[in-house]
């Protein structure tokens, strides 16, 4: 309280060397480099390796379960694809969650954003990697399902051959879209919550609990019954699956739910992320 002090102007005069002048300006970090780094980050920690390994094991296990425990009449490409896709739908979004929320949980965001202060570019790189993972994972899933179908065909003999390849291309593309939406939900939650466990739980709630909750509410609240398909994303997402393409109305419902659960929160979340103090 009593301390009074000298306060000469800032530091002392020094030799006139100006590092501002002799600064060699590097070019901006290329986006491809950022994507490469983010790809590497999805596989260089224990948690991310575990998730990748678990996804592989679950997918292979799904095939084995079909072959081991389900009657041979059901051994079709579609069955294998369904069984492989189910764990993937729950697992893939976790990659996005780890990629985004992990930066905060482990506080590596501090280094990430001092190396790349334009945070939007890092977020975009992570989004690109997430999209890439959807494509690659589904390509592998199709390959694995095909492989299992061949194995099944050999095991079952000729009589099942006519129904083995039962999934049209359109349906497969819709499955990829389904996964992309799942990934986007995980990504959005991670951006908004910036907390790994919270985002994971949040995703499981949306994927597993939300539909039941929604139909429960619809059954007791008249006003909600008509609105439900337009606001509840998981059911809208499931309309993509199955042999029949969604109706125009169902596509529109997918649109509104994606707007509500992904576009809107992601926009707000990214805007917040670009400004939030990183500590």
């Amino acid at each position, binding site marked *: 309280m009593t301390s009074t002090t000298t306060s000469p102007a800032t530091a002392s005069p*020094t030799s006139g060397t100006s590092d501002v002048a002799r600064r060699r300006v590097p070019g901006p970090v290329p986006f491809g480099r950022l994507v490469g780094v983010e790809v590497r980050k999805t596989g260089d920690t224990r948690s991310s390796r575990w998730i990748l390994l678990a996804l592989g094991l679950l997918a292979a296990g799904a095939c084995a379960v079909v072959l081991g425990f389900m009657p041979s009449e059901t051994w079709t490409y579609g069955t294998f694809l369904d069984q492989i896709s189910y764990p993937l739908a729950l697992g893939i979004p976790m990659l996005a969650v780890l990629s985004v929320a992990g930066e905060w949980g482990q506080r590596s965001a*501090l280094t990430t954003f001092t190396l790349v202060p334009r945070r939007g570019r890092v977020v975009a790189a992570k989004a690109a990697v997430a999209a890439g993972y959807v494509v690659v994972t589904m390509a592998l899933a199709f390959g694995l399902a095909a492989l299992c179908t061949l194995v099944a065909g050999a095991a079952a003999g000729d009589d099942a051959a006519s129904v083995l390849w039962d999934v049209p291309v359109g349906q497969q593309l819709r499955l990829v879209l389904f996964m992309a939406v799942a990934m986007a939900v995980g990504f959005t939650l991670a951006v908004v919550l910036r907390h790994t466990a919270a985002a994971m739980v949040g995703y499981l709630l949306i994927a597993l609990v939300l539909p039941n909750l929604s139909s429960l509410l619809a059954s007791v609240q008249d006003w909600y019954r008509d609105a439900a398909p337009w606001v509840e994303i998981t059911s809208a997402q499931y309309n993509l699956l199955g042999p029949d393409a969604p109706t125009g109305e169902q596509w529109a419902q997918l649109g509104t739910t994606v707007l509500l659960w992904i576009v809107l929160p992601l926009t707000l979340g990214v805007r917040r992320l670009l400004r939030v103090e990183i500590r």
Partner: protein
Amino acid sequence: MITIDALTKRYGDFAAVDDVSFTARPGRVTGFLGPNGAGKSTTLRVLTGLATPTSGTATVLGHRFADLPDPGHEVGVLLDASAQHGGRTGRETLVLAQRTMGLPPTRVDDMLDLVGLTRAEAARRVRDYSLGMRQRLGIATALLGDPQVLVLDEPANGLDPAGIRWMRDLLRTFADDGGTVLLSSHLLAEIEAIADDIVVIGGGRIVASGASEELLSGTGTLVRADDAAVLAAALTDAGHQATRTDDVVLTDAALTDAGHVAFRAGIPVTELRAADGAGLEEMFLELTATTQRDATGAAPAPTGAAA
């Protein structure tokens, strides 16, 4: 070159950093000294673009940090050694930075050698690192891009004495080669040992700044007396400048003059010595004490300025 200009950062009503201005020049090590909670880290976070200022500016090499196209090549930053992904190995942490900056992979091994992390240590996960090892890894990351400016928040934390010595030499060499170093610390001795310029912050405000020699080599005299207020008045009456902090008076009077004034005023003196560095030390202790962190009733015993 780092320029902080009228920087203020508020959290709600609380000003963590309040109208702070200073410059860190090339070829010099600038020590940013302040007690816990003074606002050092907050200032450095704003400087490195991790926080936005409420008002004022902070620039590195003439630009806002966020406007640097590939800052790793220009500014090495270590703000918090514990803020690293525990699940990655030390080497992987460096590889990610090396790739982000587009550097040749050999840089990683060079840096590991430079900071004294063995290959075996680098292969371990950061979670299992000691604080000192994390600090070394953080310094390696900061130096990776061969920058011209270093910004380090309490880099000596967790380093053993040999490590502290090593870091001092490293920063000295860096500055002697024309680099700008800004490092924070809450330890005066640490800053004394390395800094060419010192900026002292307390309660979010700059309380002193200048070249170390000026701040540390006291031209005046330190007198300690129970009746310090009376002594200070007596010194002022005798035509000297006097600054009182509790029972200590700092004056520009020579040793003998100060002694005579005290004697004539009939004030028993409990300590009388050349002030060298004591001004800064007393001020810093006062600053620390007023934050009331470990304030015990008794005033902390001054140890004299470590040379």
